[in-house]
């Protein structure tokens, strides 16, 4: 049952992930039979030039698409993989996802532990420099407000999932043992895991994007869960900008190592396997392995410790410890992994407070309006939402602002707000949307501003807030400057994500998403995946 649902999700899910702003290409005039399509975790994005250079030197093209590793695993589960190769962060997820036996030649290219990177001055203040730090120390610091931190969504990305499973392992009945179904059902474990996840301040759907978000929001946050390699990359940028670097903490009782396996996906396309093997061998040559080492990836062939690391890259003052014996947790079997991911979504994660700002202007009528209604039904009808791992949390708050050239439901927003995940109430909210008809002009930013203001009224202390603007992006109003000054003056930290529909023009929306450190997702071909992408950020 679960598998069928997951498969359904991903069949519709794929197309958009390709489009949602994360694929890069070097195709040019290279024919398809010399083109390799690779789907990869975003932590590999900075390594792409190595691959593109190899491709152009050899007359090949490589088309890279980035998404969270757990999403790659789900795609494998669906059996529909429109790529020649997968490059997730951890072999675990190939094993978990590849129930159709699609992959082969799977080989680790490099290793990197998942660490907790915290601004050095805070690590100093907490007395963490050079000390053994346990998960409990981290919870205490985040709960007390000493640390405001980011991690990726555990149901989308390996670094978030690794930290989540590491915390579960640390909090299990017998700390350090592989977690079991009983652990997940234990009230003590639930309480502890909610404590730490409750302090996550921002999220994203993949690790590379999280690093970018952290750098972008550097003043507001103190720490992030990410790969040691990405902490190094972030620190290089921070140092250039004259900012304080992050200090890497390797929690003693809860750690995981990414091993970046590159695997071939058999689609029976003549010649692709040979190109893949050529690339894989190239990445494993001594020269490239050294280049990867210099990019902060661990490439020693015997054990994870490094004897010949460049100390200008693996810098001890950043907490980077190449001599340490790194002991990752042991993961549970596939059923327990699935149970843990479901619980993350429906119970353990931090709840979301979301205002959906929906475009009902004349330009949306027809297909745009139909798509928008279908999308909201997917989210608000819990029997459908469950199929797509979009189900609500008991402490979520969801609200809807309808607009055209004015706010259609502006004086009765309380009737358009649902606290919690009661199925009947959410469905009723959908039915109200269903009854609305598109017409008149468009004032997008006036509506976005109304959404932000409304969010301030409904948000709770514990939730992650966001506005999700769903529109075709054809603004006819002049509300942007008011929106901009509100965000700047209130030092508002709420991201305004945009999902585009129909005949969309993302360019009009970009200043708003950039201003609020959010992103635009293309909903024109697949709304569900656009939703999942946006949701990965809250």
């Amino acid at each position, binding site marked *: 049952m679960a598998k069928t649902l997951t498969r359904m999700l991903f069949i519709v899910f794929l197309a958009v992930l390709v489009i949602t702003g994360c694929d890069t290409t070097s195709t040019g005039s290279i024919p398809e039979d010399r083109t390799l399509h690779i789907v990869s975790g975003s932590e590999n994005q900075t390594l792409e030039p190595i691959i593109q250079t190899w491709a152009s030197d050899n007359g090949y093209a490589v088309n890279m698409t980035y998404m969270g590793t757990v999403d790659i695993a789900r795609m494998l589960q669906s059996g529909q993989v429109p790529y020649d190769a997968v490059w997730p962060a951890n*072999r675990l997820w190939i094993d978990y996802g590849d129930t159709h036996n699609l992959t082969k030649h799977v*080989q*680790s290219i490099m*290793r990197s532990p998942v660490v907790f990177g915290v601004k050095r001055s805070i690590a100093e203040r907490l007395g963490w420099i050079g000390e053994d730090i346990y998960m409990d120390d981290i919870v205490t610091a985040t709960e007390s407000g000493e640390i405001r931190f980011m991690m990726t969504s555990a149901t989308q990305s390996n670094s978030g999932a690794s930290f989540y499973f590491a915390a579960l392992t640390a909090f299990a009945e017998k700390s350090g*043992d592989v977690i*079991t179904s009983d652990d997940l059902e234990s009230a003590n474990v639930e309480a502890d895991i909610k404590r730490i996840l409750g302090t996550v301040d921002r999220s994203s759907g993949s690790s590379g994007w999280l690093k970018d978000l952290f750098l972008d929001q550097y003043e507001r946050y103190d720490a992030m869960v990410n790969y040691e390699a990405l902490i190094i990359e972030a620190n290089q940028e921070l140092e250039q900008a004259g900012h304080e670097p992050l200090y890497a903490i390797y929690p003693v009782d809860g750690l995981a190592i990414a091993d970046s396996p590159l695997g071939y996906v058999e689609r029976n396309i003549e010649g692709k396997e040979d190109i893949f093997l050529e690339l894989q061998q190239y990445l494993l040559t001594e020269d490239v392995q050294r280049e990867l080492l210099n990019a902060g990836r661990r490439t020693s062939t015997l*054990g994870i410790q490094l004897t010949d690391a460049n100390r200008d890259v693996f810098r001890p003052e950043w907490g980077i410890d190449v001599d340490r014996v790194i002991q*990752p947790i042991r993961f549970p079997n596939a059923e327990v992994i699935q149970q843990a991911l479901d619980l993350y979504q429906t119970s353990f994660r931090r709840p979301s407070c979301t205002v959906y700002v929906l475009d009902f202007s004349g330009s949306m009528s027809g297909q745009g309006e139909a798509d928008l209604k279908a999308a909201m039904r997917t989210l608000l009808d819990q029997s459908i939402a469950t199929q797509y791992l979009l189900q609500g949390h008991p402490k979520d708050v969801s609200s809807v602002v309808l607009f055209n050239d004015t706010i259609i439901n502006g004086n009765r927003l309380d009737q358009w707000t649902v606290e919690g995940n009661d199925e009947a109430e959410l469905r009723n909210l959908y039915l109200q949307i269903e009854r609305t008809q598109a017409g008149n002009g468009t004032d997008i930013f006036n509506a976005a501003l109304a959404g932000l203001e409304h969010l301030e009224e409904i948000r709770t202390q514990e939730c992650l807030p966001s506005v999700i603007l769903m529109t075709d992006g054809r603004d006819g109003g002049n509300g942007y400057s008011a929106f901009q000054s509100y965000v700047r003056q209130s030092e508002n930290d709420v991201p305004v994500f945009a999902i585009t529909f129909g005949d969309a023009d993302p360019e009009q929306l970009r200043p708003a998403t950039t201003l609020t450190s959010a992103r635009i997702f293309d909903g024109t071909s697949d709304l569900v995946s656009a939703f999942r992408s946006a949701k990965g950020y809250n």
Partner: protein
Amino acid sequence: METTDNRSSTLRLVRSLIVLGLIVVAVAALAPSILNTVQEISPTETTHVECIIGSEKSGFLDNQEVKDILAREYGLDVSYRRMGSIEQATTDLTGVDCLWPSNTSALEIFRENNPELFASGTAKSEIIFNSPIVIYAWRPITSALEDAGLVTEAADGRKEIDTAELMTMLTSEDKPSWADLGVTDLFGDFNVVTTDPTRSNSGNMFYALMANMLVDGDIATMSNIVEQLPTIKTFYDAQGRLEESSGILFEQFITLGMGAYPAIANYESLLIELAVNNPEQADAINSQIQIIYPVPTVWSSHPLIALNNQGKSLLDAMQDERLQRIAWEQHGFRSGLTGIQNDVTKFAIPGLASEVNAVIALPRSNALLEMLGYLDSN
């Protein structure tokens, strides 16, 4: 290093080779017994042999020297697909000339299911290679186990561990922690990681060894294994996710290091293959990784089951001393044939046993299947 063990999806494209008549003449001179077989099928063309094998032998069959000898001397072109050993015993045999599992249980099951093939002389089998199940441990782990008196050094320098004591410790409710054993760098309890016994042969064999030890060092049977199944399953369940392939487990052990995998159980052949293929790393490998021989251990035997004349021609060719030498010197497989000595001085691997004699038989296949079914149940 192979990445998948039990995945049977890949059928290699048949490579058609044209062999000169001269080769047949050469074969006639060198191996008259084989010539008859070859001539019966096709006197002037290459004989194609299609096998289903355990993945650990794919490196051997992909070895160019092996291919050359098979083609030049025996007129054979072998292609294969990979499959788990037990699965091989019950798979569809259409178009298949031979099976080459990694344990004798698979042979036993196959024989029981197909008695007529052997009675009529159509099928024939012989153990071609052997490799003992050993423990690999990082040097600080070995030292700690030696200090604790669990690992001892034999006269020829090999390290040994008393299997009964090891299994008792692993399945005990109060296992020692790493810290108890003096390994202060590691968190948690002493453990030996295996592949998933329900999906991979090396794990399967370690669990078979465990079953034997738990029935007091006897050979586990249907009647006496039952009582031990809950103990074995408790150990299995506590392992969480296990790798599905011996090659992957070994690769992970090597690349992720002592923190991730302090000690594993796997084939002896894998370390030899690694050392041979990475001569520049031999010193580092030898100084950091130690082979420990369980006393007793079990053989992972590689019986080649020929299903027809093509299969038999490969079975005959595998008697060739040159092939047996390549199997040992490049892939670490000890010969399963009588009269062939494996020279350990070819390798600079400290503690590599010249002979492995402390070996216990596997449980009967019905007892083994009973155990695997029990582990797989909820």
